């Protein structure tokens, strides 16, 4: 049930912010500070999410095979690999490191 509540809230919230952008008058969100905050907010959230989903398990900080996978993704990004290759590199390296017994 909790999962459905979260899904309903996310679906409604995400749809309404999309619609808001199309409906509000152009001037409303055009203040420079609002724009810069809107650009930086995803940076902060994505960085925190990347770190947490790589280095945590069950509410504790851990260092495991996912760290190697993320490093592989980072290398793929530096080499300008396509999106799916980046994700694939992380998955393959994580599975490989785990298979080696980490």
């Amino acid at each position, binding site marked *: 049930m909790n999962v459905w509540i979260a*899904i309903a809230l996310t679906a409604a919230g995400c749809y309404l912010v999309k619609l808001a952008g199309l409906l509000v008058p152009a001037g409303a969100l055009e203040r420079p500070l609002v724009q810069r905050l*809107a650009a930086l907010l995803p940076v902060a*959230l994505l*960085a925190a999410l990347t770190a947490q989903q790589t280095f945590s398990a069950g509410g504790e900080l851990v260092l495991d095979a996912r760290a190697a996978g993320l490093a592989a993704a980072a290398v793929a990004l530096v080499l300008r690999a396509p999106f799916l290759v980046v994700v694939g590199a992380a998955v393959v390296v994580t599975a490989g490191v785990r298979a080696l017994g980490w």
Partner: protein
Amino acid sequence: MRDGSPGKPDAAVVRDALGVGIAVGLSGFAFGVTSAGSGLSVLQTCVLSLLVFTGASQFALVGALAAGGNPFTAAAGAFFLGTRNAFYGLRLSQLLALPKAVRPFAAHWVIDETTAVSLAQPSRRAARIGFTVTGITLYVLWNVTTLLGALGAEAIGDTAAWGLDAAGPAVFLALLAPMLKSATERATAGIAVLLGLGLLPVLPAGVPVLAAALAAPAVLWAQGRRRASTGREKDSR
């Protein structure tokens, strides 16, 4: 050229849009697998892709739920990630000049990829074609591959053994990397990582991500202060 869009034939716009739509649409696999691997049912996974349809928010939601976050903090993190779409909508509403009646339907497709393709077009006609073709392609593929990914994850059982729990963070990193353009973004990301990891053991699941979002206003505030103080130094000279 018989299409009336200066400089760019319709077919070229469609080709651009299909390229982006297909490449990103296929990554619904990664979402389907991650979501089902996080403990959501196939139905829940598919409803997310059908109704939320903004990838980063979907990944964030299933990640927060898997970590044991309550539905409200989990949804809040997903919502804040989705707020950038409001700013895309603002740009698109001027560019596409959609009739009022169409906007509630078009709104569902206002995401990173449709915005990027539309903004890259030289005319309103091309932008409308780009938005529509990217939207249709991405929506159909994202939902089909979500279903296949979720079914696949259920079939193979332990997704972690296949390294599939690394797909979520890799997606986030791939979305983040092109945003790290200047020292401002890098400082924000660095502080957010420290806050997100540092607060993880002490705050309830889902809350540390929201706290890490404070890195954005903090960096802007620090920048504003520094600019104000260098401004004063110049004035006093």
